[in-house]
């Protein structure tokens, strides 16, 4: 259709717009000249901040991976027998086994008739009875209070006290959440306000777990990036925090500082001095601290230890422990449990005044309550079998096996990737991922840019098509300009992981050769 004709059609359409007075729908021109009704909800009329929301872990590369799986199942020939989803921190999907005791208790809670079944151990039964008693109508199917089941919050508080060597924890400060993500987003909702130069700014590490950037985008908050130091094993640097903050003060109102420890995607475990420095910085600059500690049991490297922000804060004395506002987050999805599908989590709020807590309750009531099985599971995580109980030995065996397998795989990953020319991998001190730096030939970078793709996405897409391995490109997490990375989980079983790592190695060598 030539331009003249389409103009004619447009004029006719415009004149019929007077019909809108009669309440008829607006007409819209499409490419083929057919008129079609313009939608109410379009790219132009939808919430502009929602358009900025991206979440690379479940982004376009995963969509392609799912497509390839479908093609494989339909019998299409590929250079690989299966698609391996090494993009997402999902331990069970990769074959990790759940903790038997936890699943026994949850099965008993689900169908209490099983309490009459002699094949279930007594300690599992007594845990189940206790949990059921704390639920309305003695059932996991009842709503709980929005803040979470009282008894569970009390147990979480006691766990935190034990973990932190006796530092007191008020159950009132515990909020059970739908995964840690829910808690993080809720806190950000509370914090983000203001307009223009006084719009709330939130500091987040680069690289970061993209829930943060997605939530900040959705809330229209200002994301303030502070770079982790790759040369020093992804450590935090107060001078860098200061730089980022000072710069940001010119165009926004920085109010919060987010830290992921152990780190995601980087896996670094902060040492105690660093945590102290961060606390001092937050105190000095009056920043709300958000400590994402979901990987607190996933610490592998010698010389590394998990220090909770809360414990360090209190060890620093009342000058800090009475003033610094802190929220710390935990989850049932990681550590040795790996129960992502339960959406269990909690947050502990420190030094938040009652007026603010009242506002927080309003926010959490809108979605009624977190999933009760997830709350029950969290109760078991903070209240596991004790020495002398029938299930203790097996529990310890399973937990140790899982954590040591992860430690082994962390080491293996670092070792193998570092044998590849053009790949450089920092030690995986904790968490569940490697985040190696990859060198990409100029030719590949150019080709990527020509087709409008991030170079590391280009690389990862090629890897997916050729090997079936799905990773997430570093651009999904943030990285220094001109550097490229990918995030790969360490979760597949050891023998499979070995094969995977070799495939990655071979691919990288091929890719480098192809684009030299």
């Amino acid at each position, binding site marked *: 259709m030539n331009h003249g004709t389409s103009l004619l059609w447009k004029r006719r359409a415009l004149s019929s717009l007077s019909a809108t007075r009669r*309440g008829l*729908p*607006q007409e819209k021109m499409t490419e083929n000249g057919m008129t079609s009704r313009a*939608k*109410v*909800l379009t*790219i132009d009329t*939808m*919430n502009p901040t*929602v*358009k900025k*929301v991206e*979440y690379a872990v479940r*982004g376009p590369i995963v969509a392609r991976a799912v497509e390839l799986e479908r093609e494989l199942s339909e019998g299409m020939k590929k250079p690989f027998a299966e698609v391996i*989803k090494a993009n997402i921190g*999902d331990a*069970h*999907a990769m074959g990790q086994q*759940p903790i038997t005791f936890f*699943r026994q208790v*949850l*099965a*008993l809670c*689900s*169908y209490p008739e*099983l309490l009459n079944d002699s*094949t279930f151990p007594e300690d599992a039964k007594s845990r189940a009875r206790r949990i059921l008693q704390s639920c309305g109508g003695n*059932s996991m*199917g*009842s*709503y709980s209070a929005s803040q979470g089941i009282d008894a569970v919050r009390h147990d979480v508080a006691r766990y935190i006290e034990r973990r932190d060597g006796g530092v007191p924890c008020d159950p009132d400060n515990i909020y059970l959440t*739908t*995964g840690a*993500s*829910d808690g993080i987003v809720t806190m950000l*909702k*509370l*914090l983000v*306000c203001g307009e223009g130069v006084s719009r709330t700014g939130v500091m987040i590490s680069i690289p970061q777990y993209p*829930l943060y950037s*997605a939530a900040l985008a*959705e809330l229209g908050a200002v994301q303030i990036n502070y770079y982790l130091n790759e040369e020093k094993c992804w450590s935090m640097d107060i001078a860098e925090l200061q730089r980022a903050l000072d710069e940001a003060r010119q165009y926004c109102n920085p*109010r919060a500082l987010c830290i992921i420890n152990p780190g995601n995607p980087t896996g670094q475990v902060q040492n105690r001095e660093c945590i102290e420095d961060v606390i001092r910085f937050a105190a000095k600059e009056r920043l709300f601290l958000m400590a994402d500690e979901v990987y607190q049991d996933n610490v592998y490297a010698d010389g590394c230890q998990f220090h909770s922000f809360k414990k360090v804060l209190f060890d620093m004395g009342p000058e800090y422990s009475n003033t610094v*506002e802190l929220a710390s987050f935990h989850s049932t999805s990681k550590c040795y449990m*790996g129960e992502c*599908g339960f*959406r269990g989590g909690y947050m502990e709020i420190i030094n*938040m005044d009652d*007026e*603010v807590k009242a*506002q927080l309750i*309003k*926010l959490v009531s*809108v*979605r*009624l*309550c*977190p*999933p009760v*099985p997830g709350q029950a599971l969290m109760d078991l995580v903070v209240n596991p079998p004790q020495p002398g109980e029938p299930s203790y030995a097996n529990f310890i065996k399973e937990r140790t096996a899982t954590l040591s397998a992860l430690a082994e795989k962390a080491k293996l990953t670092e070792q193998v990737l570092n044998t590849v020319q053009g790949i450089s991998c920092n030690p995986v001190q904790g968490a569940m991922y490697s985040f190696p730096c990859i060198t990409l030939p100029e030719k590949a970078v150019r080709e990527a840019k020509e087709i409008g793709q991030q170079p590391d996405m280009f690389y990862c897409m090629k890897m997916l098509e050729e090997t079936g391995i799905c990773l997430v490109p570093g651009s999904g997490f943030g990285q220094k300009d001109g550097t490229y990375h990918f995030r790969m989980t360490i979760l597949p079983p050891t023998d499979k992981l070995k094969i995977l790592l070799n495939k990655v190695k071979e691919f990288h060598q091929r890719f480098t050769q192809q684009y030299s």
Partner: protein
Amino acid sequence: MSVVREISPNVRNMKPLDYEILARRQNLIEKELRQGVRKPFKEVLDVSMSDLQMSGLKPLSFVRQVLAACLYPELLNSNKLPVDVRQRAQRLLGECAGASVGSYTATKGIPEIVQRISEYITRRDGGVPCSPENIFISSGSQWSLLNILKVLLFESSPKRGILVPVPSHVTTTLSIPSLGGVVIPYYLSEEQGWQLQVEELQRALDSAKAWCKPVTLYIINPGNPPGQIQSRKSMQEVIQFVSEKRLFLLADEVYQNLIYGENSEFVSYKRVLGEMGHPLSDTVELASFHSASKGFTAECGLRGGYVELVNVDPAVMKHIYALFSKDSCGPVLGQMALDLALNPPQPGDPSYPLYHTETEHIRKSLLHNIKRVSEILNSLPGFSCQPVQGGSFAYARLFLPPSAIQKAEELGLKPDTYYCVRLLEEAGVLTLPGSEFGQKEGTHHMRFCITTPQERMEEVLRRITNFHTQFMRNVSETEADRV
């Protein structure tokens, strides 16, 4: 000075609920009861929320057996559970990554479950096709609803408006200011059995156009708090209305499986839209919400719900997907509960007899409760109650004497809140006042759930009758004054 003292005004603007006053009193009373303080009752009967299992009605055995086997697959190796339970669990586990309910799922939900939901929808709607790509499962229907509202509402000038029924349950409307939107109330007609009148929609829309940009219409069918079911004709009028006025239609249909009365029939908005044919059927933009929390399955605590999006712009769908994806996925047990609720045992299945017995028991209890509520409340002077055609609640009209209204004002309480506080204090029954849900000026109401065992309902009605008779006779000074 606290960093967080400066809270987002969007959160501040979320209005506090009168429920909090009642909840505080309830906690106090229950504490006193535990301490042995003498009261005219031994326990507080909480009929304020619709939570079938909390009230004492049992979860369905089939559902819980399947979930138990999925949680602890050892159970598949024995004959403890019926064979169809084991088959169902086996199939469900096969649909989970790593055969574990502990794995994440696809953002929209386990694909096979989503497929079966789309088949349920097609069956329900007499064959109107349903595309699985349009379905998102989430942690309860409120979660989906909030996500869709986030896309529709945002800070703008003029503010974007959402037409909301009066009365309406609060959970949704609570969050609208925090999203930057504004509520445009439209009044349901109590005298006409709480039916929606299109003229009233028109009035509300016309009045709102001066100060906001209306973008969406929210309807609850079957209703909450009043239990009305919308007629097909009324739904057709609404569809015409949203098409002409260019509004996005949000249909909250979570009570679709709780229908009473032989002449009551639930028809979904999707079905009516489909049957109205082109051009409406492929242009009207609709989001319809359902949940595993209501109906006989009543798994409120498992958090399983979904939204079906109809005629939504594909470019917008991509962003909706991204929004859902950052929350990973709905809890797996909730997804499974949804699947089991919508695909129950069939005649011939080993579990069917028990399933049938259990659901019949619940159904009979609810029908009995509704009958008794109507008999009793409509015979008490000062009370009247429209028939409950569907849903979980009775929504009674209170005709309060002027002295009671005055007393309430003196205490700084809304009149029906005052009534509910007195009812709680003196009779140990927790209900919710109509002021919580919105109502015509000068009218008063009370909502309580009917999804409770028969004996409990009888006890509730007995206590209400005694209290009400006394109250109407003599509005006097009591301990309730100290609020």
